């Protein structure tokens, strides 16, 4: 199987190890991966902050870049949600028939990582080994926009050595919300404090999620507060084996 990786702007810059883990994982599972060098950003940050006009060109670029790609894999729920929920409106407004057709054809070929593993590769046991107590944080986009459901749990259940600690108030937002984390930093931090309490209460060593955005926010507070926990993207857990344990997480 062939697929193309859309790493996302923030993973490329801030969490390249997540990208490396995705490559390790998928190649181990027999996926032939490629990477379009022309990729930058899906436009979510602009669209969500009200800079809709700017998002048009970013959406167009994405569609043009991947129009002939068999499968696009994105290790970020929120970016996939942007493509699924907001691109239709943006593309419609651009009024370009060819673009619209390209987008309609592309849309079913875009997958969030856990969707790709479960729905396309039809695999739950990816051969991972990660002997740690882990709490899974369900990001809002994954939960409510992508309806990932039990996919992440099914994947984590097959990771050898992993002790999954249930997270109380799983469906409550961590407070990141993109630029909300800065425009309403105090409320974001109040929500973070509540979330962190739930996460730390699990006694887990790691908090994982399918979105580094939430993890940047949670992990940033953990580090500031010497909380004794770290964050790690699920791709890195799934890529981890006895021979090649997950790269030292933050």
């Amino acid at each position, binding site marked *: 199987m062939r697929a193309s990786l859309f790493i996302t702007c923030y*993973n490329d810059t801030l969490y390249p190890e997540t*990208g490396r883990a995705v490559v390790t994982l998928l190649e181990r599972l027999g996926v032939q991966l490629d990477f379009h060098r022309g*990729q*930058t950003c899906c436009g979510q940050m602009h669209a969500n*902050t009200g800079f809709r006009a700017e998002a048009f060109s970013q959406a167009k670029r994405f569609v043009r870049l991947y129009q002939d790609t068999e499968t696009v894999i994105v290790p970020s729920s929120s970016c996939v949600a942007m493509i699924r929920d907001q691109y239709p409106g943006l593309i419609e407004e651009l009024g370009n028939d060819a673009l619209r057709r390209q987008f309609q054809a592309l849309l079913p070929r875009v997958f969030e990582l856990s969707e790709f593993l479960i729905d396309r590769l039809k695999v739950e046991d990816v051969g991972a080994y990660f002997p740690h107590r882990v709490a899974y944080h369900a990001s*809002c986009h994954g939960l409510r926009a992508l309806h990932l459901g039990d996919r992440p749990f099914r994947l984590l259940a097959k990771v050898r050595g992993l002790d999954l600690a249930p997270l109380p108030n799983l469906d409550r937002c961590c407070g990141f919300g993109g630029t909300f984390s800065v*425009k*309403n930093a105090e409320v974001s*931090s109040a929500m973070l404090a509540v979330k962190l309490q739930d996460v730390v209460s699990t006694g887990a060593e790691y908090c994982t999620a399918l979105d580094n955005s939430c993890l940047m926010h949670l*992990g940033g507070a953990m580090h500031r507060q010497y909380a004794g926990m770290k964050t790690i993207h699920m791709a890195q857990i799934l890529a981890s084996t006895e021979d090649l344990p997950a790269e030292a997480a933050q």
Partner: protein
Amino acid sequence: MNHAPAGHPILDPRLAPPFPQAVLPVLRNPQLRKNVAHAIDVIQSKRARLVAEKSDWQDLRTAASGLRVHVLENLAFYLEQFEANCTAAGGHVHWAADAAQARQIVLDLLRQQAANEVIKIKTMTSAEIQLNPFLEAAGVSVFETDLAEIILQLGEQEPSHIVVPALHVNRAQVREIFARRMGLPNLSDDPQELTNAARAYLRQKFLTIPTAIGGANFLIAETGGVAVVESEGNGRMCLTLPRTMITLAGIEKVLPSFQDLEVMLQVLARSATGERMNPYTSLWTGVTPNDGPQNFHVVLLDNGRSSILARPKHRQTLKCIRCAACMNSCPVYRQTGGHAYGSVYPGPIGAILTPQLMRMHYAQSLPYASSLCGACYEVCPVKINIPEVLLELRAEVTNQERGQARRFFDPMYLGLRVANLLFSRAWIFHTAQFFGRIGLRLFTRKDGWIHSLPSIGAKWTQTRDLRGLPNQTFHSWWAARQKEAK
């Protein structure tokens, strides 16, 4: 206009501070946060339990949403039908284009009756048009009769929630207010005793004041009937004892037929208070001889609603049945309570309704008072896609900013404009990453983490660290790997 004491929340969007500023005193008030979180958690769990037991819940939501969409698409038809039927049944229907007109209509009706006292059933619509201070200034004494509204009226406080307006007040605080204002120094803080005190206090008012003002949950077009949903019975008192009843209702409150209540009542009680049915729902049609007020008036209020109706993507805002499930599920509201929104409509619905009622001239910070988590949309009984409307409103606010000189001094605005340029070409993006990494090294400590940043970055680092930018981007790693493979 609003001579509130310092620190007193201002629920006038024209005067209220922007949300990021308004939350600060609230976030620093542990008692308030605890009261709000407790109330929210109770309602949320009750709602969740009842929704789980209702196997056709999603079907009800679909029906409720469909009904409301249909009404809004045919609003003029149903309003005229309501007016005709209400009038035929002995009621009088008035139309108010805006808040000022509505206030004046009400005052004129009171003057016709030489009424200088009124009893009121809680209605957020009257708070929206700031009716009470207007009537008081005109020499009319207004007596709220909802327990929460009495707490607020006697305690000189503002509502913070549209269904449980005094949710930010705990029992000790209620005790203090009642003891002081009702002259009951030995009152305990037991909720039953507090409620008994309110009952006694209001009894005389109900029995003696002949004029009432209230709202409507639903207006039934096919019959001219009006439905009011309540818990305490003060609504029933106000609907039966007085001689004159004035009902204030937003134009969007209309439903096509009596039967449609079978959908709306099922979703409303579960969403609002986590009950299968609220204690009392009353429906009356015009005037009934020998039963209740013989002088009945409905004031239909536009006040910006027709302009929301005119915008297809925004119209869904008017589907709202004021159940407050959205604010009960909102993680932002849970931390801030309602006052920080600076509007009688707080929470997620307030974040989209308030700026629109203000024609986007005020409350521009409210569409940003959300992390876009989507919990509100999930629970909304009429399926208002609040996040979708929030995004539309954010685009409008940003477009306003584009024309303002101060945008050149706004780091967030400038940052996003620059970012757009950076994302336009991969090579520009990569160059920016390179220089960004170098620049951020200045702020990166020995452990590889950034502890403090300037400008907007400071809003991040005030409570969170940020890991320093790795030396190699993913795309560089990939390129190097490709090269190696050759």
